[in-house]
């Protein structure tokens, strides 16, 4: 229970159905740690893990009459989500903390706590569907009814064990329907706006966050300043740190160069940011590592699927095949724009999630 509309409605729904429900909030990040540092905003209201959100979650639990607890896993969150987030950026990649949080906290640590307190399943407010396929003898993850809220992109890492203990009651519902249900249940948070950003980066300024976090840790921001280079290898300028860039970003150089320049590639090794015209942003292949397969157990033969390379992306037709011990090569039918290392490549067969991996 995050104190938001989705998880609150799930709790109310399950309780109304007569289930034995316990509400749990995971305290994952202390919003006050970095407030005020390096320009970070001071008071942080209504951010996930703020006292306000715990208060909201608790009040909903009290309203619907279920036991409610807060469990603290700040240490694990910092180790498995925040640190990697910072390190990915500093290495020139664009991370997805939400997937890491799902893999390590929401569907691992939380499932452990659930088992410890005697619960059989964990239900969340994610827009996704899970079901058991008798024929394949596998748990399947599928896209939800409301594709505009589809969160399956962030859930590609879920294992069979995790899926077998997970419930997604909102999978067949649209967001407006969920809100009206919340209103019908009389939940105080029915009108609460959705949180859209990364929960531990209030305001969305991840560069500020990285500066503040490293300062708090007493670590120096590594010097990744280097050269701005064209795709032909010509040095055309300098930059102050590779973490300031992301693939596909439009780079304004302050000098009229005719056509716009985009970040094509970020090279952590030699601290170069390679820029080029729009046409250089397109590629037909990508490699994904640390893969997880859901629909199938292994990928012996190539498969025709559709692939998402970021959350906001229309799944594009491609062929996937094993290209290494833990590597999948994705070959798109059409070149895709701004394939970004650090993001996930998630494979779909219709609305079924085949699996996914991290783009290298």
């Amino acid at each position: 229970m995050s104190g938001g509309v989705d998880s609150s409605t799930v709790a109310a729904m399950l309780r109304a159905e007569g289930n034995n429900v316990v509400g749990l909030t995971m305290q994952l990040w202390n919003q006050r740690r970095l407030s005020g540092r390096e320009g970070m905003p001071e008071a942080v209201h209504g951010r996930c893990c703020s006292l306000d959100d715990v208060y909201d979650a608790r009040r909903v639990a009290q309203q619907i009459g279920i036991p409610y607890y807060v469990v603290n896993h700040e240490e694990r969150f910092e180790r498995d989500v925040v640190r990697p987030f910072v390190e990915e950026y500093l290495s020139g990649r664009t991370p997805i903390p939400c997937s890491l949080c799902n893999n390590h906290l929401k569907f691992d640590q939380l499932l452990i706590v659930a088992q410890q307190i005697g619960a059989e399943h964990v239900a969340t407010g994610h827009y996704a569907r899970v079901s058991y396929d008798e024929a394949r003898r596998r748990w399947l993850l599928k896209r939800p009814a409301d594709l505009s809220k589809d969160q399956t992109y962030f859930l590609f890492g879920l294992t069979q064990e995790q899926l077998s203990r997970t419930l997604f009651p909102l999978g067949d519902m649209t967001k407006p329907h969920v809100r009206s249900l919340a209103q019908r249940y009389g939940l105080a948070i029915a009108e609460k706006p959705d949180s859209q950003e990364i929960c531990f980066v209030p305001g969305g300024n991840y560069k500020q966050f990285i500066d503040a976090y490293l300062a708090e840790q007493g670590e120096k921001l590594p010097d990744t300043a280097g050269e701005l280079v064209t795709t032909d290898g010509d040095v055309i300028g300098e930059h102050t740190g590779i973490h300031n860039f992301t693939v596909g970003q439009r780079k304004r150089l302050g000098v009229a160069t005719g056509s716009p320049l985009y970040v094509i590639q970020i090279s952590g090794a030699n601290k170069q940011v390679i820029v080029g015209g729009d046409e250089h942003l397109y590629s037909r292949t990508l490699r994904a590592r640390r893969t997880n397969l859901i629909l199938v157990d292994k990928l012996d033969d190539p498969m025709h699927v559709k692939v998402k390379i970021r959350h906001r992306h229309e799944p594009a037709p491609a062929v996937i095949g094993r290209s290494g011990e833990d590597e999948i090569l994705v070959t798109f039918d059409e070149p895709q724009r701004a394939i970004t290392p650090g993001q996930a490549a998630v494979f779909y067969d219709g609305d079924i999630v085949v699996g996914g991996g991290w783009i290298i």
Partner: protein
Amino acid sequence: MQRVYLDNNATTPVLPEVFDAMRPYFGERFGNASSIHHHGQETRAAVEDARESVAELLGCSASEVVFTSGGTESDNLAIAGWVAAGEHVITSSIEHHAVLHACKHLEKIGCEVSVLPVDGRGLIDPDDVRGALRPSTKLISLMMANNETGVVQPVEEIGKIAAEAQILFHTDAVQAAAKVPIDVRRIGCDALSISGHKIHAPQGVGALYVKKGTRIEPLFHGGRHERSRRAGTENVPGIVGLGKAAQVAKVSMDRGDDKKMAAMRDRLERGIFAHVDEAGVNGQGAPRVPNTTNIHFDHIEGESLVIALDLKGLAVSTGAACSSGAIEPSHVLIAMGLRSERARASIRFSLGKQSKDADIDFAIALVPEAVARLRELSPKYKSPVKAVS
């Protein structure tokens, strides 16, 4: 669901006789105890009766009792009330946060604070107190009994040291009152805190013993209530409740009920240890108040055990009460030298006057099973999630 409450160090239920004593003061006898008319005289009498009962419990005179809103206020009053910038305070690493943070605040205004360690049993060494004395030392604040472990400190020895050095001695007796006899003259303290809701009186009332002749700077400025030591209209019903609870406690201790309490607590320990291995009492070997036992169950997460037990109807805690998911393991257990994992694997059971043998039976039946279940699911942070078909 049957519910058994073994978290009396967090708070206690108001005894029926205490509630009965309080009842008239919500309705018929409602006057402001400082009013000169009949209604005020009535409640003034009740407040002063209560004051005498508290004085009897503590072995002091009524004029030495200051009513406050609880243990935290009493601690703050004693610490802020006597120490000025530049002065030195001695306290211990196992104090309640009310004392520790009040001392931290003193540091902000230019005082120095020495925080003394405890040994593996949770006991302070009086020699450490002697060693910490300086010419600028003004106050020693050392708790009489610890809220998490129940360990009782050698307060009389500390009192002697303070007297010799001519410095003030405050003791937080919130967890000692009504459990062990208290005699402020024997202890030799200049101030002593108690809290109503730990002794079967309501929340929101407490008291501070302040030795006659000691000037104390009030926290609250306003009227001259409590001999100008604590401004604010008296919480008459609360104070009446505190007085009655103090009376009940004195009678009960004189009757030897504390020994019966200790026997129940000991039976709980034996019952648990008979069915759980790799577990032990934190504070073993130290004198303890009769109602408390703090037990570590290795290889589990205490927080999960508390939740699992709560869902089965047994209320206990991992130490100080905090519902926002505190991250640090108990500072008391860490100060006693417990490894972080063991501190986090510790649970506090604390009995109250209303606790029955059946409650102990209930706990003995539930706890070993819950611990065994959690141990099956260990180790932490690996995914031992078993698939459900």
